Every structure is written in structure tokens, then in C-alpha cells.
């Protein structure tokens, strides 16, 4: 659906509620007109009834007085009944003077036929009392019909105060006063003659004054006062009502005075009846005048409603016309902009991207379509730029796809080689798996050997512990020996000191012998014997020195032997220590070996478990490698597919390049 059509629909969518609203307004006005018209219907229906209410008692009185005017009144009443028939035929159904309407309210007797038959009985009756009875019946019928007309004609619901108070006078107050005066006129003679009659006369007077006279005058005055407030000031209301009202006021006041006089015993029944008749007459005059003015007010109201209805329709029509005019111009502007846009898009759709949108409107009058045009220009600018880049990129992609196709071919060949290599790996892995299982078996054997070794090492460790104990005992014995040798050496040192002392004494003796020999020699012949003794002493000293020298040599040998023994013992001690240390080291080594044997045993068990796991893992790896082999086959197939796809891509890129060539970018 085009945007102008949518705008038309939018306009219609707005017109529709406006129309409904206007319809409702006019319907309300029509209802108000109908309401007021029904009120006029009520007045029309009351007119013949009020004429009958005026004439029938006069006819009855004329018949009682045997007046000549009776036949004229009877003829007038018949004419009025015919008029009532006509009115009933015209508006009776509207006022629900139907069997159904009357039945709803329990008023089925309020028919014109019943009224006419009652009238005929009244006319045909020669007996005064019987005639009075029929008169009361017919008066009740008329009063009931007046009330029914008032109820169904909306008069009782009149919305304006002036017409409402006029209705109050015509529909309620005046008929009530007329009936009350009729009752007074009918029963006055009997009441006045009766005992306590004056009391009832007082009551009649009070009711006539308070309930009738004051209500009529007050309502009329209120209607006159409210008149300017509704639909303008009536030009006839005040001039027409005032004389009738004054006439009514005088007649009613006279009637009330006569009643008061009669009640006090100063008046007469004749004067009361005369003033009552005058008051009845003035009441009918006032009723006619008031009904006419009420009709006038209702017609004025109806005319105002009609005028208001016409004005509403005219204003609505004018508003709609202006709205449609504005919609037309707006629609035309939008259509032109859209047409321009569509033409530009058609050109762009044909591949020519050079046209740009330009708005003829002033900047203050630019709308969203102009903004869209600017956005379109910006978009087309970026689009053209992108297409230019896309062409460049497509050229690059085409060259890349060519390279991709070549590399795909190479990759396909390589993947085939890889598939063969993987199959070789699978074969190798199967061999490795077999080898792993063989290793697993060997590891179980090694575990057994390791456990045996652990037991042997444990035995060796116990031997080393024993050896270490023995070595400690040897070391302690050797220490005792060394200490004994050192003690012996100290003793030899003491002997050495003694020998040195002997040697020193021998040396001194020898020197003394030398000196003695020298002295003997110096003494010549006298000292010859002394010389011999000195020589012998020297020889003895020399012998002592030699002996001590030998002792020294022996002691030296003993010391040397002792030193060698100590040295040997110390060497032995050192060897023992070395042996002890080596044994300790051996024990530590055995500890280490034992720990290693434990560790080795544990390790071999762990290795056994690991090998078991490895065997399982190898089997899984083998399965995985087989899957990889299958995967490599798939990859090779996929790469061949890639090569095919790269050919397709090349074809597609050629097509895209062909599409891009369609566009005119500059």
C-alpha cells in the first residue's frame, strides 16, 4: 500500500472518531429536541382536556339551572372531544395513551372512549344527583389524563427553571386549584348548612390560599425572574403573563375574602359561588396564557437546539474540510519527496550509484525524508567507497583463491602421504605395543629378581654390621698396644738419659785422663808411672765411652724399633680406622643399597604398574592412532573437497567481480 493511501487511511482513522463524536453530539441534541418536543406534545394534549375541565361543570350547572346555554355548551364539549380525538390520534401513542402505556401505570381507565361514554351518561342523565356523580367521575378522568400526559411528555422533568415553573403552574398548581374550587362550589351549600361547616370552609380557604394561590403566584414570579437566564429574554412572557396573572390574583383574592367572610358568618354562599366562578374563569385564562408562553419557551429551546446542531455540523464540516486540505498538501509534499526518492533508488537499483538526493525545501522546512536523503547520500558515499574497496579486495581474493587452489592440490597430495605415514605409524605402534607387552613380562621377572636382591642385600647388611663391631674391638686393642709401646719408649728415654749421664762422666774422665797424661808428660821421668795410670784411666774412659756408645746404639735401635712399632701400630690404627671408615661406608653403602633395593623393588613394582598402564595406554594410543589414521583419510578427502571448494570459490569470486562491474561508481 502506498504512503499517500496510508496517509488517507490515517486521515480517515482520525475522521472516524470525529464523526462518531459528532454523531453522539447531534444525537444528544436530537434527544434534547425530542425531549422538548414531547413537552409540547403534553401541552397540546392538555389543551382540550382543560377545555373539557372548564366546560363540563358549566354545562352541568346550566342543566341544573335549566339555562339555554346548556345546548351550546354541550355542542362545544362535543367539538372539544373531537379535537381530543384528533390530538390523541396524532400524538397519543407518543404520550403512551395506549393500552400498554396506561397498563404499566395502572391507568387503563384513562381512555378517551371511557371519557366519551361518561360524558354521554352525564348528558343523558335527568337526575341531578346522578349527573353530579357522573360529573365527579368525568372530572377524575380528566384529571388523571392530565397527570398521565404530564408524566409521559417529560414536562415533569423540564430542565430549565423558567419553563419548569411555568409547567408547575399549568400541570400541577392551576389544575389542583381548579379541582379544589370545583369541589368547593359543589359542596359549599351542604357544608355551610351542616354543623361545623365553617371549620371546613376555613380549611378550604387555607388550602386555596397556601397550596394553590401562593404556589401559582410564586411559581409564576420565579418563572418571570428566571426567564433571562435561558436562551435569551422572552419578548412575550412578561407582557402576556402579567395581565392574566393580575386578573387571577384579583379574582382569587376576592374568592378567598368571600370564603373568609362566609367562614366568619358575615358572607353569603351566593357571593362565594360568584367569586369562585370568576376565579375559575381567570384561572383558565391564566392557564391558556401560561401554556402558550410555555410552548413559546419550548419552541425557543428547540430552535436553539436546532441552531446548535446546525452550527456543530457546519463547524465540523469546515474543520474536516480544512484538515483534508492540509492533509492533501502534506500528502502531495510527501508524495513528491517519495517519488524523487523512488526514482533515485530505481537508478541506484539499475547500478548507477552516481545520483545524489538534493532537497528543494528551505532548511527550516526540511523533514525526515530530507534527513533520509542526506543519510542516503552518506550511505551511498560509503557504499561506493566500500564497493571500490570490495573490487580491490575481490581482485586480491581471486589471486588468493588461485593460490589456495594450488596449495589445496599440494595439501591433498601431502595429506595422502601423511595418511600413508600414519598407517606406517600404526604398524610401528602395533610393534611397540607387542614390545611393551614383552617388557611387561620382563619387568615382572625383574621384580622377582629385585625382591631376591633385596633379601641378599639385607643379609650383606647384617654381615657388615658384625664386621663393624669386630673392627671396633680391633681398634680398641691396637690403641692399648700403642699406649704400651709409648710407655716403653718413655722408659727407654729415661735409660737414654742415664746413658748420657754415664757417657758425660766417661767423657769427663777421659778429658781428665788426657789432662793427667799431659801433666805426666810435662813432668818427664817423674811422671812416667802417673802417665801409665792416666793412660789406663783414659783407656777405661774410652772403653766406657765406647760401651755407652754401644748402649746408645742399642737404645737407638730399640727406639727406632719402638718408633717403627708405634709408627706401624699407628699405621695399623690408621688402617683400622680406614677399615672402620670403609666398613662404615660399606654399611652406608649397604644402607643405600638396601634403600636402593627397597626403592628398586618399589620402583620395579611401580614400573610394572606403569608398564601395565603403558600397555593399556599404548592400546588406547593405538586405537587413537588408528582413529587419527582414519581422520587423516577424512582430512585427505576433506582437502580434496577444499580443493574443489576453492574451485567453486574461484567461480563465485568471478561472479562477484561480474556483479561489482555492474555498478557505476564515478
Amino acid at each position, binding site marked *: 500500500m502506498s504512503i499517500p493511501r496510508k496517509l488517507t487511511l490515517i486521515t480517515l482513522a482520525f475522521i472516524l472518531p470525529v464523526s462518531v463524536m459528532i454523531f453522539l453530539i447531534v444525537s444528544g441534541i436530537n434527544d434534547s429536541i425530542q425531549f422538548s418536543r414531547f413537552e409540547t406534545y403534553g401541552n397540546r394534549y392538555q389543551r382540550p382536556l382543560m377545555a373539557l375541565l372548564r366546560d363540563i361543570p358549566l354545562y352541568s350547572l346550566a342543566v341544573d339551572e335549566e339555562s339555554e346555554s346548556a345546548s351550546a355548551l354541550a355542542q362545544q364539549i362535543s367539538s372539544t372531544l373531537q379535537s381530543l380525538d384528533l390530538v390523541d390520534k396524532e400524538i397519543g401513542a407518543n404520550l403512551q395513551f395506549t393500552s400498554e402505556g396506561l397498563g404499566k401505570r395502572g391507568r387503563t381507565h384513562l381512555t378517551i372512549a371511557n371519557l366519551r361514554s361518561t360524558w354521554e351518561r352525564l348528558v343523558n342523565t335527568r337526575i341531578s344527583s346522578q349527573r353530579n356523580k357522573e360529573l365527579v367521575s368525568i372530572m377524575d378522568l380528566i384529571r388523571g389524563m392530565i397527570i398521565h400526559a404530564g408524566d409521559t411528555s417529560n414536562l415533569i422533568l423540564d430542565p430549565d427553571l423558567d419553563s419548569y415553573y411555568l409547567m408547575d403552574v399549568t400541570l400541577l398548581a392551576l389544575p389542583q386549584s381548579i379541582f379544589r374550587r370545583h369541589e368547593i362550589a359543589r359542596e359549599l351549600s351542604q357544608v355551610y348548612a351542616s354543623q361545623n361547616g365553617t371549620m371546613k370552609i376555613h380549611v378550604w380557604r387555607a388550602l386555596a390560599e397556601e397550596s394553590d394561590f401562593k404556589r401559582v403566584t410564586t411559581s409564576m414570579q420565579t418563572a418571570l425572574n428566571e426567564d433571562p437566564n435561558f436562551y435569551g429574554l422572552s419578548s412575550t412572557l412578561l407582557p402576556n403573563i402579567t395581565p392574566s396573572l393580575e386578573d387571577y390574583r384579583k379574582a382569587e383574592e376576592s374568592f378567598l375574602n368571600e370564603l373568609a367572610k362566609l367562614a366568619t358568618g358575615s358572607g353569603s354562599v351566593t357571593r362565594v359561588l360568584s367569586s369562585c366562578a370568576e376565579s375559575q374563569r381567570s384561572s383558565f385564562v391564566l392557564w391558556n396564557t401560561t401554556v402558550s408562553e410555555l410552548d413559546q419557551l419550548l419552541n425557543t429551546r428547540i430552535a436553539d437546539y436546532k441552531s446548535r446542531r446546525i452550527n456543530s455540523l457546519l463547524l465540523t464540516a469546515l474543520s474536516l474540510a480544512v484538515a483534508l486540505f492540509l492533509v492533501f498538501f502534506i500528502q502531495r509534499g510527501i508524495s513528491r519527496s517519495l517519488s524523487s526518492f523512488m526514482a533515485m533508488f530505481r537508478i541506484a537499483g539499475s547500478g548507477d550509484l552516481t545520483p545524489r538526493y538534493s532537497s528543494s525545501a528551505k532548511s527550516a522546512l526540511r523533514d525526515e525524508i530530507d534527513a533520509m536523503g542526506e543519510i542516503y547520500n552518506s550511505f551511498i558515499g560509503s557504499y561506493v567507497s566500500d564497493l571500490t574497496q570490495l573490487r580491490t579486495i575481490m581482485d586480491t581474493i581471486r589471486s588468493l583463491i588461485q593460490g589456495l587452489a594450488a596449495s589445496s592440490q599440494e595439501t591433498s597430495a601431502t595429506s595422502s602421504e601423511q595418511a600413508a605415514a600414519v598407517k606406517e605409524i600404526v604398524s610401528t605402534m602395533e610393534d611397540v605395543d607387542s614390545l611393551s607387552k614383552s617388557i611387561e613380562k620382563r619387568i615382572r621377572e625383574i621384580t622377582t629378581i629385585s625382591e631376591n636382591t633385596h633379601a641378599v642385600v639385607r643379609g650383606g647388611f647384617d654381615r657388615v654390621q658384625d664386621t663393624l663391631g669386630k673392627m671396633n674391638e680391633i681398634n680398641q686393642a691396637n690403641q692399648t698396644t700403642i699406649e704400651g709401646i709409648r710407655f716403653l719408649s718413655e722408659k727407654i728415654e729415661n735409660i737414654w738419659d742415664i746413658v748420657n749421664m754415664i757417657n758425660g762422666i766417661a*767423657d*769427663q774422665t*777421659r*778429658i781428665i785422663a*788426657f*789432662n793427667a*797424661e*799431659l*801433666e805426666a*808428660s*810435662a813432668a818427664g821421668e817423674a811422671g812416667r808411672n802417673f802417665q801409665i795410670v792416666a793412660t789406663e784411666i*783414659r783407656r777405661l774412659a774410652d772403653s766406657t765411652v765406647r760401651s755407652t756408645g754401644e748402649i746408645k746404639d742399642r737404645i737407638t735401635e730399640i727406639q727406632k724399633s719402638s718408633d717403627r712399632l708405634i709408627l706401624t701400630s699407628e699405621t695399623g690404627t690408621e688402617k683400622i680406622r680406614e677399615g672402620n671408615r670403609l666398613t662404615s661406608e660399606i654399611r652406608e653403602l649397604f644402607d643405600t643399597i638396601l634403600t636402593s633395593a627397597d626403592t628398586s623393588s618399589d620402583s620395579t613394582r611401580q614400573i610394572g604398574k606403569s608398564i601395565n598402564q603403558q600397555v593399556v595406554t599404548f592400546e588406547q594410543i593405538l586405537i587413537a592412532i588408528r582413529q587419527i589414521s582414519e581422520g587423516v583419510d577424512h582430512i585427505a578427502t576433506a582437502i580434496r573437497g577444499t580443493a574443489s571448494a576453492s574451485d567453486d570459490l574461484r567461480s563465485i569470486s568471478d561472479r562477484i567481480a561480474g556483479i561489482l562491474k555492474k555498478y557505476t561508481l564515478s
Partner: protein
Amino acid sequence: MEKFVLFTLGERWFALPGDRVQEIVLDHQIYSLPFVPPWVRGLINRHGEPCTVLDLQALLFQEELKARRFLVIRTEGDRYCFLISEVLSIVTLSEEDCHKLTAEAANEGYFSAMLTWNGRDIPVVDCEKISTRQEKDLAQQ
């Protein structure tokens, strides 16, 4: 026949005529003297009289002898002694075993003769030449 006292300086053997040796003394303290040559080691107290200690090894071989034995020389003037290592023996030798040195050879050294004892040649120290040298050296100091 003539007596000779055989003694050693270290490992070397020497001899002195027996009549020139007054006595052999052991273990006396040597009191050093100032302004004397190195081979004059000092004095020892011999019976209350000073006796000059001469170190033949220092004189002959310029090597100080470390010993505490002294050969006291019989003199009429100032008393002196030789510091020696050990007295070996007092021997009586014939003239055949005592070879006098020639004047030229004697003048060149401090020995007067050369003994032959048990197959060993032992020089005989000339006390006069030693004394002369001592006087000369002390005079130079």
C-alpha cells in the same frame, strides 16, 4: 819420639805438639770481646785468669765452630786456647811419621808439619804463626 794431641774441627783432623798443650777444658762460658776479628771468639775464665779463645775453623775455613771444648796452649805470655770439636787421642809418633813442612809451604799457612797416623795425614797447627796472626789482627783493629 814426640807426643801429639790429635783433635778435630768438625770432621777435619788436626794435631798439636803435646808439649804445647797445657790442658783440656770442658764447658766454659765464652765472654765475647769488642773490636776483635771474628775468629777471636772471646775470653774464658781459667782459674781466675783470662784466656783468649781462638776459633781455628773460623780462621782457616771462615766458618764459626759450634763447640764447648778448649785446648789451652802452654805459653809464657798471654794465655790463649783453641776452640775444638773433640780430643781424639794423645799419640807418640816417631820422626818418620812427622814430616816437617818446608819454609815456603810453612810461610804460606798456619801448619808446621804433617803427621801420618793410621794411614791418615794430619796437619800440625803452628801455634806461633797463629799467635802472630792474632797480634797482627788485633793491631789492625
